[in-house]
């Protein structure tokens, strides 16, 4: 019992310190005015109080009676609230002295975190909230999974809907839906009634989603192959038309965000081959992004030093080829390096690329700080017509070719993954010596991974250059490498859907939260560290697919470990479905 209490107390301490930290760096203050539910709840409050919930949740995830789990959770929450309140009180007491150090610890913050009450009452209320939220968090693992899923999706729905306000509102206004706008939003947040409805709908979705999916999967598995093929085509068609109409549905701003997300999907797919498949930790991936952008600029811009102004599609093969060569060029000297050493050297290469493009010596070629300007658009000066979709212009003009590139890159990555090449890469990632003793030519496969990553990364650079119509060396700093790596890690190393998820979460989401910009790096760092500790396989790991496939296999053939290898089951690719 004592041990449990001590653990809960430590958890509470951590929670309190996390809250103090969040408040201290200014995250809470920055989001104080961002309403989730107008008048009642702001994003700042949510962020401040979320650790209490999570602490309670974590503590209740253990064996024991319901009452005991709940009280432990509440205790951890209360402890967290108390630590936080105490910390804030200390700051208040020492206020004049430490103001210079903790510039964010101003009276506004204090009043905000104490619910606008005076410090004494506020601190008490904070402890009370800690108890309450700890209890609420603790109840999550206690209730049936369906209820838990419902509540969580409900909360996520409300937060997401309020965050989307700046984008949903103009779209709705455009379509003359003023009444809907008035019903949903006020002062940047959801109105209480609207929030309730959004919550209800989300809960319903959360509850229905899993059974519905299982049912669809079951029916799909039971259907005959012909129907399955039709089903797959319909699903693919739906997905394609959804992606194709996104710019029309969401408007210019979101399309702009999607282009950014798409660029990182492309970069992520490339880096995924190097890091996820082959296990070569490359911290200088930005080099290939830069090379792609600069090569494209050189070849297509009429004002570049080459001045030949090629068409984008003519230049593209040259760019890809050139970048792959650079990939080999960078790969060759680091062949013998492993792990940390490789990471450090590639980090250096990334910086070297930027410095070279910036350098005075190469200014006649790359334009130094000025970069290269007037890069033409990918297709017909950024204005073209797609059948059914009408005329495309603005960021959407980049969006479509970008999506096509992503699709090609994903296709290549997917085919490689389940191939002899992919297996050789994986083996190399797992154990280089053994891979070599198994007959894999390490040198060739390392170089291939670098060249492949470079070729895909340069596509991102090429599109980026045409999208901005200019390139500057400052864009290609080490942060790009780190961000791409964070995208890959968040999604799950080696996982293709993971890259899409990672880009949406790390690139797309921050764009929706303008206040977020200055905390981006803090959060990226935190995300990578937390992922490595809590979920190193990422959010969309790639083994689950296999496991799911496996679970779909019928049970009876597994038990006969007899001597009938001639039986047709020897090929598992013929996914058996004798229902």
């Amino acid at each position, binding site marked *: 019992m004592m041990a449990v209490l001590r653990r809960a107390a430590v958890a509470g301490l951590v929670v309190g310190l996390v809250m103090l930290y969040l408040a201290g760096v200014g995250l809470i203050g920055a989001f104080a005015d961002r309403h989730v539910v107008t008048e009642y709840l702001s994003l700042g409050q949510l962020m401040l109080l979320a650790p209490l919930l999570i602490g309670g949740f974590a503590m209740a995830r253990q064996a024991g009676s319901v009452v005991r789990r709940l009280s432990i959770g509440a205790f951890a929450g209360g402890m967290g609230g108390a630590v936080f309140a105490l910390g804030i009180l200390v700051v208040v007491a020492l206020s004049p002295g430490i103001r210079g150090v903790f510039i964010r610890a101003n009276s506004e913050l204090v009043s905000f975190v104490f619910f606008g009450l005076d410090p004494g009452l506020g601190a008490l209320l904070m402890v009370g909230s800690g108890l309450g939220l700890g209890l609420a968090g603790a109840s999550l693992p206690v209730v049936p999974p369906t209820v838990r899923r419902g509540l969580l999706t409900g909360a996520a729905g409300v937060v997401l809907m309020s965050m989307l306000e700046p984008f949903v509102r103009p779209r709705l206004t455009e379509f003359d839906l003023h009444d809907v706008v008035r019903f949903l939003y006020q002062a940047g947040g959801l109105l209480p009634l609207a929030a309730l409805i959004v919550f209800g709908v989300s809960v319903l979705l959360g509850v229905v989603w899993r059974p519905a999916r299982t049912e669809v999967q079951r029916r799909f598995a039971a259907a005959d192959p012909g129907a399955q093929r039709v089903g797959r085509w319909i699903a693919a068609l739906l997905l394609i038309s959804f992606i194709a109409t996104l710019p029309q549905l969401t408007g210019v701003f979101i399309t702009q965000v999607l282009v950014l997300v798409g660029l990182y999907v492309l970069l992520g797919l490339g880096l995924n081959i190097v890091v996820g498949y082959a296990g070569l930790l490359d911290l200088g991936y930005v080099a290939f992004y830069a090379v792609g952008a600069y090569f494209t600029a050189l070849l297509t811009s009429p004002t570049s030093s080459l001045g030949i102004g090629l068409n984008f599609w003519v230049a593209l093969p040259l760019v890809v080829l050139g970048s792959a060569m650079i990939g080999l060029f960078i790969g060759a000297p680091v062949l013998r390096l492993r792990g940390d050493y490789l990471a450090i050297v590639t980090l250096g290469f990334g910086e070297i690329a930027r410095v070279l493009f910036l350098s005075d010596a190469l200014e006649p070629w790359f334009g130094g700080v000025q970069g290269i300007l007037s890069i033409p658009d990918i297709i017909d000066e950024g204005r073209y017509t797609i059948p059914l979709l009408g005329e495309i212009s603005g960021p959407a003009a980049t969006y479509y070719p970008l999506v096509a590139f992503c699709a090609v890159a994903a*296709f*290549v990555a997917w*085919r*490689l993954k389940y*191939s*002899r*090449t*992919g*297996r*050789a890469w*994986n*083996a190399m990632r*797992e*154990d280089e*010596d*053994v*891979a*070599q*003793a*198994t*007959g*894999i*030519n*390490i040198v060739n496969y390392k170089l*291939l991974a670098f060249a*492949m990553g470079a070729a895909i990364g340069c596509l991102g650079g090429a599109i980026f250059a045409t999208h901005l119509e200019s390139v500057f060396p400052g864009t290609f700093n080490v942060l790009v490498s780190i961000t791409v790596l964070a995208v890959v890690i968040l999604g799950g190393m080696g996982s293709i859907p993971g890259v899409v998820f990672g880009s949406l979460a790390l690139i797309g989401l921050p764009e929706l939260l303008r206040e977020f910009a200055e905390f981006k790096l803090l959060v990226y760092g935190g995300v990578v560290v937390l992922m490595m500790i809590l979920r190193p396989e990422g959010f969309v790991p790639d*083994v689950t697919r*296999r*496991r799911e*496939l*496996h679970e779909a*296999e019928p049970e009876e*053939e*597994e038990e006969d*470990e007899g*001597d009938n*290898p*001639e039986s047709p*089951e*020897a*090929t*598992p*690719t013929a996914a058996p479905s004798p229902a």
Partner: protein
Amino acid sequence: MTVSTADSTEQVEAQGILLEARGVTKQFEGLVANREIDFNIPRHSIVSIIGPNGAGKTTFFNQLSGIYHPTSGQITLDGIDITNVAPHQVAELGVARTYQNIRLFQNMTVLANVMVGRHVRSSGAWFASVFRLPGIRHEEEAIEERSFELLELVGIRRRRAHELAKNLPYGDQRRLEVARALASDPVLLLLDEPTAGMNPRETRRMTEFIGRLRHDLHLTILLIEHDMKVVMGVSERITVLDYGEKIAEGTPEEIRANPRVIEAYLGKQATA
């Protein structure tokens, strides 16, 4: 078994030497790990190397599989000089091995581990896989089929095929290593303490299995072992290393009777 059983193993026997090492010396800085070792493996035999800890057994093994290259001396496989050949080429020439401390591709599936072993006996290039050129699908199916056969041969259940290798029980991990090695259709199989960490029953099964392997797959096998029972029971010839030098060679009976061996290695067990 689709693996055809050799009815008359004797006919394959006595066809000369498969692997020959002459005067192999390996020196690390000041330490001489192997000194002037002459050693050969007759085709289709099971040969063992024994010796106390630190006798240089694994070093010698690593030179046979190309991981280390000898400081001096020569190693030939089937008449081909492999003294300074890279490990992946040695593997291609038909030498496959397992490791003393199991070294599987932990985060790959059981099946994928065996499929990697098939690498040297397949040829699909990356662009062929991307465009699924003719022949690729057939090759992949063949690799997979063969891998399932091998899993069955070593006795790993089919339902385990899609589990991660690291989640297998210990005995299965050892067996999987053997399956991976066999996937390259080796002529010479090097087993580094294949029964380490196994209980007596598992050890007996592994020993029988090794004997069966030779017959079924026309293999030549070199064992490194600590467990004297395994070595005595299964091998035709035994070489004893001590302090990096070969101190004895012969049939199990000869080794058992050799006073130098008893002194160097069996001493404790013989007197106990």
